[in-house]
Each structure stands twice: as C-alpha cells, then as structure tokens.
C-alpha cells in the first residue's frame, strides 16, 4: 500500500492539533509498513529547521518543489515539500501578514529582493495560493507512485482533488475541523465551498469524531455511507522531556487553558468561569497558554473582569514548555464552543493533569474519566474547577483512571482504521 499524504507540519514546529494528528498517524502507518509520500508546504528559509531537515538547497534548480527527503526514524516515509506560505489555521488576513513577514525575512537574509523578482513562491491571496499549491501538487504527484491520496483539512482538498483527477486514484479527505467549528455561524463561504467540494469529490471522508461526522452529513450534505469516524490517538511522551523542577509555590493552584485563543476555543467562557472561581477561592492562578486572534481581547477581558493579576498569558508554547506547563497545572480546562476532536486533553491526562472538557467536543466521545460541561454553562465550569481544587480525591481519581484510559487511545489503532479504509477505497475504485 502506497499513500500520497497531503499533510502538514512536523515536530518540533507544531502549531496545533492538525500537525500533531498528521505526525501521529503517519508515524503509526509507517510502523505498519505502509509506504507514504508525505507532501507538505514549507516556507522559504524556514526558521524552523526540524529533524526532517526541510532545507531547500535545491531551490534554485527546482524552485517549487524540493527533492525527496528521508528521515531515519520513519523508514517508509518520503517527504516532499512544496514551497508555499500555507500553514494551518490561516485566515486571509493572517495570510497577508505572513507573506509580508516572510518577504521581510528573505530581504534580511539576502540583502535584496533581486533573486525573487522572477520566481513567485506565493500568490497574492490565500485562496489563489491554495489553488497554486494544488497545481504544484499535481506536478509533484506525477513523479510519484501511489495507490491512494489522503488529504488533511481544507487547504489540501483542492490539491487532493486535482491529483485524484490527474491520477485516477481514490481520494480520502480527513476532516480535522470544519468551517462551522472555526467560525460558528459566520462561515467563510469560499472556505465552505472548498470543503464541500473536497468532501463530495472524495471517495471516502474520514471524520475525527461523530460530532464532526454529523456536521459533515447535515451541513455539507455528504451521504453518511462514505463518512467514517477515526478517532485520534495520543503520543505517549509524558516523560520524554527532561523537565527540571519548576519553582512554583505549591500553595497556589494552577488552572490551565492551552490552545489557540480563538472564538472556537471559548477563551471568554474560561475567563468568566475564572472570575466565578475567584469569588470563592483566592489562591488560584489561571494560565492561558496559546496565541490567536482573540488574544488581545482576552487580556482586555481579564482586566475588565478585575482578575488581571490572576490570569497569566504565556503566548504560544511548544515542546518542552508545554511539558513544563503541564507539570505546573492542577487542572486543564477546554471550554471549546465546537471541538471536532481535541488532542490536548489527552496530552494533559498523559501528563497526569485532570481535565474538564466541553461536551461539544469529539474527545468527550472517547473519554469517560473526564469532567464534562456545556461550554456556555459558566457556573458549572466554575463549580467543577472549584471541586477539583478543593477536593483532592477527585483529582486523584480522575488522574489515575484518566491516565489509564488514555493509554488505550493509540495512534496504532487509528492507523489500522485508516489502512482498512484505504483498502475499501481501493476495492470501491476498481
């Protein structure tokens, strides 16, 4: 079985669940012996040189796609990169900023823009860029052998669809989130149309939860017959990072929000619950780890609520810093308004941090040893936060059972489910 995977970021540069999921799934498929050509967009002169060695020395010779790269730990995976500023969770605005940033970087690196005058490695707006990416993917795919195409989230759907059309191979689109999760009812019509096209063109649609499956069926009009649920797993790395003892005063409790600070993640509900908690107990700090378009609003809101000194903003965290923050935390809260899956609570449990999760999340379908709340029920969120902080046996029981439960959610099982869907898609294609 050979898979052309249209994926995203690899560690250590991971900005969210999408990258984590692509990595976990690919690694597990690799161990099963599935051969994968993993195609991903990279920026010119990426600051984030990773162990995948996404260097672009061949840039002059082959300006748009680099030659294959191998990684020692992944024996059956070949990486192909396409130079593009695409990145998960972009919006049209942040896309423009990113282009400007990267131009500035390039100018700084090269001293001038002369070399770039003729080779445009990006398009002026995000949607054209998604289309440009698709064209490049088709050219790249022409050099590759594969049986199925597996595309992750909307920005790769046009590429997946184009490659499928050109190659005649079955297409699987993997829905990690939908426009309704990200934007509520204010959907971006262009993105919605691309998502809808991808799902309808695909031979199989993989949803990360039944919650997402329902959205795919009801909002995108996809027939339920071709929508399968494959839950995410969790990478067990609780002790891989050598984390020195942190110097936190243990008389103060730490409640953690970890994720992008966007409407979807419900940061405002977190802050309003924090306010309620602080009315009942004083020795608590609320840490908001992450960045996003509501970050400034969240800082303002904390101040407006009069709890500014009790809420700490760390900005975006990665790698060891994430482990450190988990080590500090007494409780992790995910008040997401709409969360297709939600890997972070699994990572929290893996790090022995009990979790409160929104009932409007895919992960609540697989976790039983977690406290569950409606995201809008601020009183109940506060009630449960206080309970965990005030009654130690609650945290003890949640931790011990939760940690055990998380061990059962393995990428290996997700990969096996995917492999089975590949087989079915192949049979269906014949």
């Amino acid at each position: 079985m050979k898979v052309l995977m249209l994926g995203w970021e690899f560690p250590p540069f991971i900005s969210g669940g999408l990258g984590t999921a692509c990595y976990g799934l690919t690694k597990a498929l690799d161990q099963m012996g599935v051969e994968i050509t993993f195609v991903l967009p990279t920026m010119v002169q990426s600051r984030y040189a990773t162990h995948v060695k996404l260097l672009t020395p061949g840039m002059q010779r082959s300006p748009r796609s680099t030659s294959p790269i191998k990684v020692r730990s992944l024996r059956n995976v070949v990486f192909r990169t396409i130079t593009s500023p695409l990145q998960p969770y972009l919006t049209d605005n942040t896309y423009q900023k990113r282009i400007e940033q990267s131009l500035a970087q390039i100018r700084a690196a090269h001293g001038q823009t002369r070399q770039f005058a003729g080779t445009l490695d990006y398009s002026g707006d995000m949607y054209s860029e998604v289309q440009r990416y698709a064209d490049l993917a088709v050219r790249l795919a022409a050099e590759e052998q594969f049986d199925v195409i597996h595309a992750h989230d909307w920005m790769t759907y046009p590429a997946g669809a184009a490659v499928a059309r050109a190659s005649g191979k079955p297409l699987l689109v993997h829905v990690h989130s939908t426009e309704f999760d990200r934007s509520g009812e204010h959907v971006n019509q262009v993105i919605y149309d691309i998502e809808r096209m991808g799902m309808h063109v695909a031979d199989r649609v993989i949803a990360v939860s039944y919650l997402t499956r329902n959205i795919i069926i009801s909002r995108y009009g996809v027939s339920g017959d071709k929508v399968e649920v494959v839950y995410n797993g969790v990478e067990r790395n609780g002790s891989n990072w050598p984390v020195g003892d942190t110097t936190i005063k243990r008389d103060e409790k730490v409640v953690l929000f970890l994720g992008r600070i966007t409407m979807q993640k419900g940061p405002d509900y977190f802050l309003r619950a924090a306010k309620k908690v602080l009315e009942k107990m004083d020795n608590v700090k609320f840490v908001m780890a992450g960045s996003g378009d509501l970050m400034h609003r969240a800082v303002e809101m904390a101040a407006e609520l009069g709890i500014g000194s009790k809420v700490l903003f760390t900005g975006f965290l990665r790698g060891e810093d994430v482990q450190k923050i988990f080590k500090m935390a007494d409780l992790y809260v995910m008040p997401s308004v709409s969360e297709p899956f939600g890997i972070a609570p699994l990572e929290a449990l893996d790090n022995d941090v009990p979790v409160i999760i929104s009932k409007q999340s895919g992960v609540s379908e697989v976790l039983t040893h977690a406290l569950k709340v409606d995201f809008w029920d601020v009183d109940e969120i506060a009630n449960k936060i206080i309970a965990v902080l005030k009654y130690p046996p609650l945290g003890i029981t949640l931790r011990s059972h939760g940690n055990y439960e998380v061990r059962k959610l393995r990428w290996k099982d997700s990969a096996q489910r995917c492999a089975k869907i590949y087989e079915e898609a192949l049979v269906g294609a014949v």
Partner: protein
Amino acid sequence: MASVCFYFQVHQPTRLRHYTVFDNNAHYFDDRKNAEICRKVANKCYLPANRLILDLIRQFDGRFKVAYSITGVLLEQLTAYAPEVLSTFDALARTGCVEFLGETYYHSLSFLYSRNEFVEQVNKHVQTMQQLFGQTPRIFRNTELIYNNDLAALIESMGCFDAILSEGADHILGYRSPNFVYSPKGCNNLRLLLKNYSLSDDIAFRFSNRDWREWPLTADKFAHWINRVNGNGFVVNLFMDYETFGEHQWKETGIFDFMQHLPGEILKHPDNNFKTPSEVVKAYPPIGVVDVPHVISWADIERDLSAWLGNAMQSNAIHELYRIERKIKSFGDKKILDDWRKMQTSDHFYYMCTKYFADGDVHKYFNPYDSPYESYINFMNILGNLQGRCVKQSSAALAGQVSKQHAMATSATD
C-alpha cells in the same frame, strides 16, 4: 424437606438535588425526581407485586409466605408520594404470612463507621416497623447484606434478634451449601441464613437474559431445581430486590406470570413448603459455624465493599460525613440530624463507583448522575453546606452561652 424462604429488599434512596458550590440553600433533596421515581416504581412494581403476593397468600390459604425489609427512607417517600402502597403493605402484614425484617433505617453503611449511629438507626427502624405494621422484627439484615463476625457479635449483643441474613459467598462457605442454617462464629444464640445466590440470581438477574442457556425460565423448571435440594439441604434462601418484579425485570418479560405460578409448582412436591426467616430458624438447627473475619456483601462478583468504598472519592466522602457525627448530635436539631442521616444512604456512595464505569453496566443504569465524578462533586458540595450549618450552630450556641454568662455576671454585680 426443602423450605423456600423469600426475602425482598424494598428500598429507594432520597436522591440529592443538583447542588453547586455556589448554592446556599439548606434543602438538599430532589423532591421532584424522588416523587417521580417513587410513583413510577410504585406503579410498575410495588402495587402490582403486593397485589400478586396478597392473592397468592389467599390462594394458598397461608401456605405461601414471604419476608420484606423496607427501609425508612423509602417509607417516608411512600408516605409522601404513594401512600396507597403503604396500605397494601399493611394488608400484607395482617395476613400473618409476611414477616418484616429489621435493618438500618437509612440503608446506611454506619456499621462500618459508627457503632453508636448504627444501633440508633436499627432501633429507629424497629420502632417504625412496630408503628406501621404492628410487628417487632426478629431477623436482621444489614445494608447490601454487608456482614462479618463483628456484625454478628454486635447484633447478638443487642438482644432483640434471632438471626441475621447474609450472602452465601463461595469464599466463606467453601464446599458447604447455603441451604442450611448456620451459627456465626463467636455467637451463642444468633443464627445465620445465607442467600442461595445462584437460584436467587436466576430470578433477579438472569430471568430475561436471552443469552442464558436456561432462558426462558418457567415456574415448573425453577420448582424442579428447588426439588433437587431435597435430601441435601433444608432451606433455599431466595433473597432479592423487590424491584426485580416490574422494574429490573419488566412486566413484559413475564416475571409476574412466573411468580404467580411458582408457589403452585413448588407446592406440588409434598416435601416442599414456604417459610419466613423466623420460621426457618425455629424449624432447623444450625449445622455448623461460619467464620467471616473480613467484610462481605452481596454486590458484584467481588462480594465485597468495593462498590461503595473502592476509590479515593468514596472513602473521602464517607469519612468526611462521619467525622461530623458528634457535632451534628450535639445540637439536638432534628432537621440537621435527618439531613446528615439521609446522606448516609449507601446509594450516594454507590453512584461514585468508578469500577466498570467505562463499560456502562448495571452501575450506570441505576445512577442518576452522568458520571461518578459528578455525584462526588454534588455530595461534597452539599456536605460543605452541612458543615457550614454546623459551624453556624456552634457559634450560635457559643454566643448563647456567652450572653447567658454575661447576664449572670451582670445580675451578680447588681
């Protein structure tokens, strides 16, 4: 000779209402839900089952007999929400074929945490039986058939009981059969009746299970199994929840028809009869001593306490509850005492059980909460309020004392 001894446990807890840490109200119970469940179970089980038992007693002219253990917390709810059930129990009491057993009024685990409280609750239950049914219980059953040698010794020392009921667990009986009367280790006069869990569970748990090899269970088949006891036992103790009839096993499963035909089938064999626990104790001598140093119960396959005290939340909640006993009793405030005691009902701790939680089994079915964690949080929030009331009472009492002393001091100086 094979005597069939039926004992039915009749109980519903007083369920707690949703209570957050922000609540300040001293009313802890979900009256609406309790009323609703009480009426539902009355209609599905208590009323039709009582009617059936009464008919059978009449039909067999006193040869059919049963025993009930009804908790005080259920009786209070029946009085409030379904008084017609009480009158049918009263009618049963008047037949002379029905024995009422003694237990803790609050269906509590008090034996494990406070002997004083335990004895007070048993006495309160005995008085209630006398008042309502004109009977003084002579047989004791502890909550969930929880039992060990110490319980037997305590019950014997109370002097008002002839026998105690418990689970015929394999690990205490070994090769011995539950179909005899035994003596508890260390007791002189008290007797021990042990549940035949295999035959009891055939009715209570397996009756409607279509995967069971013996399904469908008919009255004549069951009577045949009873007949086989003739010659190697005196008594078959069939102990089960009364809610088996119509609630755990729905009417549609045929459970009432089964029960209707069972006495006739059993009495077809001339050596068979029905006896109440007291009659069993009088009729058959003990054939040996049973030693139970560790606590047993009738729950789950473990037959231990893990369903109520198996995790950190459960043991924390119950310890915190009994910790305030002395304080609660020092006020002489009936309302506080009653609230505290209703929180002792074992069901509250059962809801916190995480054993099998992920598998969605029987524990989940009877659980009004979404998860064991919710029930613990709710319980602890209420306990927090109760503790707060204690502090208030204490300081009020203290203030009272101080002002009295002050008054005395001023009057002395006058």
